[in-house]
């Protein structure tokens, strides 16, 4: 029997007013269904039957969804918003449901994209086929922005990450950051190219550029730690609201950040590169947890790098092992770059 049935009306109203919902909202405008196939001796013009391959099932994709799954596994309430469509959209929503993530998607006319990754261990090749996603019409975009405005009141932090589907204006992240800033909600942006550069102008709390696919930000080639530090300083100077800029390149063991105008480098003892999948998303998740707990920025950074590293050194995706992350924090030494 429900307890609330015994509570008088006015007292019940008072009780309900005491609840405050606080959560992290992640935005995934272009989610995907990620399919990973392990096929030995993958060849063109050849039929690969399911029998002779080990298929590693499908998983929901899109950075924001992965961040939300990571947070939920760490025991933090996360809501994911964005556009889904068609049957694939239903599958992605169901997968998010199984992870206990709160969903608030705008369903659009066309199908959500499917991203296929084929790994050939024998020949050491990786083939990726990524769709661009369904086009978004103005009505759906307006609907998303309306819902976003409503959900901001209950959010402590917003994570904006990933690419944009066709037809969405490049300044969408900038618009969303401005809306969050008006309500004093912190933001993390993890994107690339024009949406990121326009987003930076609006002043997010944390900037973590996605440097995959050989992206030269502001035309600067980034190879050494000094290059990254210079770029981080440049981004910081774009808007005083930016509190931290983070860069990572685990292949070269480069982990750089700019906190309040000072450059830092993280040195990690005995770095093992096992699996790049999920590294960036876990890093963003770690940063989000640190920010939500209002930790000092250095600790936020340490939390981010430790969460990322745990996922870098494991074959699993979105591994949220609290004890392991705490242990890994001890391995992250953060020093100032003079």
């Amino acid at each position, binding site marked *: *029997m*429900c*307890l*609330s049935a015994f509570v008088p009306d006015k007292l019940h109203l008072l009780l*309900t*007013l*005491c*609840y*405050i*919902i606080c959560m992290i909202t992640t935005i995934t405008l272009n989610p995907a269904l990620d399919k990973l196939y392990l096929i030995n001796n993958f060849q063109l013009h050849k039929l690969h039957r399911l029998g002779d391959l080990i298929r590693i099932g499908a998983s929901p994709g899109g950075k924001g969804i992965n961040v939300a799954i990571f947070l939920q596994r760490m025991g933090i309430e996360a*809501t994911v918003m964005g556009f889904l*469509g068609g049957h694939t959209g*239903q599958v992605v*929503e169901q997968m998010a*449901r*199984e992870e*206990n*993530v*709160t*969903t*608030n*998607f705008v*369903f*659009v*006319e066309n199908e959500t994209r499917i991203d296929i990754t084929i790994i050939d261990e024998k020949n050491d090749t990786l083939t990726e086929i990524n769709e661009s996603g369904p086009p978004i019409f103005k*009505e759906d975009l307006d609907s998303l922005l*309306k819902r976003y405005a*409503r*959900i901001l*009141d*209950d959010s402590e932090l917003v994570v904006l990450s990933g690419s944009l589907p066709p037809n969405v204006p490049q300044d969408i992240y900038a618009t969303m950051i401005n809306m969050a800033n008006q309500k004093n909600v912190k933001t993390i942006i993890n994107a690339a190219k024009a949406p990121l550069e326009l987003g930076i102008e609006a002043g997010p709390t944390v900037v973590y550029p996605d440097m995959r696919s050989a992206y030269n930000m502001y035309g600067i080639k980034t190879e050494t730690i000094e290059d990254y530090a210079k770029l981080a300083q440049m981004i910081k100077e774009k808007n005083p609201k930016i509190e931290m800029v983070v860069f990572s390149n685990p292949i070269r063991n480069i982990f750089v950040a700019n906190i309040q105008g000072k450059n830092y480098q993280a040195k990690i003892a005995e770095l093992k590169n096992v699996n790049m999948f999920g590294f960036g998303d876990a890093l963003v998740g770690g940063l989000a947890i640190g920010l939500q707990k209002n930790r000092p920025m250095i600790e936020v950074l340490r939390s981010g790098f430790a969460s990322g590293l745990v996922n870098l050194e494991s074959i699993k995706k979105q591994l949220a092992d609290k004890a392991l992350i705490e242990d890994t924090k001890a391995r992250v030494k953060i020093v100032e770059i003079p």
Partner: protein
Amino acid sequence: MFVKDIMFKNITSVEEDAELKYLIKILVRQRRDTLPVVSKDNEYIGLIGVQDILNASVPGFCKVCSMVFMPNSKMLMKGLKKVSDKKVKSFLKKIPTVTEKDTAIHAANLMIRKGLQTVAVLKGKKLVGMVNLVDFLASLLNDYTITGNY
């Protein structure tokens, strides 16, 4: 077993001043027959479903003592076109809600009494998810849970 064990944390909703034709579009795309309605401040107001849209579309003479008779499709189409520009808030149902801490059987009881398939789960005045009757039944049969142990 509690509501939190069987609820679906989907907070998709329509705003009270959305038009009925927009609501129909969302229902089709999401493959649902009911959606929660919220205010501008994101506070839960009520539920609206296919049945409410139908009730609003049939002409007055087809309703006798809370029973609704289906007219011919031409009449229904005419009625539907008339109401399709109207706001959701004029047709929604105010149905009791549950909280995550309520027992699942309490939620099921509520749904059966009101003849509903789904009911909203609130935290304070905010929507945190929905609970479906079919999920409750499935959980009884298979130890099937969405969120874990109970």
